[in-house]
């Protein structure tokens, strides 16, 4: 009953099937962990994007309320409003480019007034006192470690917004 051949055959059978689940678990758990961590970091990336958009919107509202005068102040306001998500961005990469907002009919009307002469332009600038800007805000996001494999230089985020204000 306990002959060598019998034992060998039994051992061979046991060695084929025992420990299989453990091995599978050891292989799968790190992979599952990596995937879960990737999902969490993916979510954090979207939260950072949302914080960036909110910061741009808040800075635009402050501009409309005449609390911010120039691009430097707007840049500082955007950076400050990002709050705890500042660690996900590079401050040196925060850029704001501005241009005058476009309004087809209004611009045509005002250009027509301006063509009447310098006095008409002066009168127009006295009467029409609202101003505005179109901004393009860009910043590079420092991605989480897993995502950084795909984006070593950072992920560029861009936001475009336009607002008019009436100076107080």
């Amino acid at each position: 009953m306990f002959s060598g051949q019998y034992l060998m055959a039994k051992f061979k059978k046991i060695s084929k099937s025992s420990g299989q689940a453990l091995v599978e678990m050891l292989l799968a758990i790190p992979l599952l962990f990596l995937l879960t961590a990737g999902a969490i970091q993916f979510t954090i990336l979207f939260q950072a994007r949302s914080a960036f958009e909110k910061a741009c919107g808040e800075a635009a509202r402050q501009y409309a309320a005449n609390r911010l005068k120039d691009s430097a102040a707007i840049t500082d306001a955007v950076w400050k409003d990002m709050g705890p998500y500042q660690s996900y961005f590079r401050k040196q990469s925060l850029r704001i480019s501005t241009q005058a907002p476009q309004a087809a009919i209004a611009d045509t009307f005002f250009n027509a007034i301006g063509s009447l002469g310098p006095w008409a332009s002066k009168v127009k600038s006295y009467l029409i006192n609202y101003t505005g800007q179109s901004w393009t805000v860009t910043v590079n996001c420092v991605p989480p470690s897993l995502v950084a494999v795909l984006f070593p230089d950072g992920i560029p985020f861009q936001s475009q917004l336009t607002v008019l204000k009436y100076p107080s």
Partner: protein
Amino acid sequence: MIQIKNWTKNPAGQVLLATLLFCFIFVALFIGLYKSGMLYNTKERAIRASNLTALSAGAVYANGMQLVRLTNAILLGFAVADLIVITTALDLTGGLSVIIPSNFKDPNFRKMIQDIQSVLFGINRPIGVYPLLISDETLSVAVQNGLRNTYPIGNPQSWSLPIPPSPILLFNVVSLASDLPQAIIPNMALKFRTANFFLNAIPKEKKYYKYKSEESRKDVILNSDQVELAPNSKNKGQMRVKTGIGKKSGQYVSEVVSEGLSKLNAIIKLANFLASLQLDVTDRDIPAIHNVFVYAGYPTSIQGPRNNNTEIQTLSEVSISGTGLAAWDINDPPYQTTLASTDPVELVKQLSIQTLLSKAIGSIKLPSISNVFGTVLNGKI
């Protein structure tokens, strides 16, 4: 098929199947995370776009209010000249019972400025130049902020209005249920103040008539509702008791003349005269309501059930407030723009407006916009 079936019974095959299943689950999870993240960001951008568009409308509106103050200040000079002429022409010796000459005409030097104000701000007119400017600037900002625009940029003659249009601007809404048609047309909620602004209601002139009763030998007094003009009378303007009033129908009556009644009627005449004098521009509503609603759609990349791109509907409100529009307010601080907060009370109001708008837009069959533009271009408005 049998090979696949046998292969699935193989441990290696089972492991591979389980791996494929988990990969599928995680791919679905990541796609879901990506789409929900994108939609969340799109929602934030939509709210931001709507708020910035409303703030821009408020800025242009506030500039318009300052223009009203300026034109009122110019009007004041002309109004003073008119006032001098008027007071010189009227007989003020009786105090409030002013005697207005029958050939009196208001010199109306201020009419030129009032006409400019009427055209510029759309007072007593269907629409004005400045409210159109507010609309145009707001629509331009809305497009640049990413809100969906359905208005024509090309030839307006060959375009029909889709339902729902976007963005919709609502001006000076008090109660949307009653004000919706008025709110859609750009306006600044202004009117001309009249000289009787201190009177709430002007009574009609009081006239009394009398005849002597034969039975009691006393005067019977009747009011103007109980008498009528006697036809075929020798005396022009002879009044008689109305047919059907008591036993004395047809009885001739004479007008009651008393000093007190004459004074009262003179005051009423003065009040009516003052009501005919248009002065400066003032707020249409009491208390003054100046607000702009921006109701628009922000397109998303998410496809709907009918393979069309869905959009996020947004609603923002901005109110414009200040100390007044009179000429003496010209040096006061300019009108301020305030974005409505999202507290629960405001949210309920905004939701009710959204519901009313959706119902109104769904139930109205709008005409082709080319008909409207054709009417405007032909000078019928």
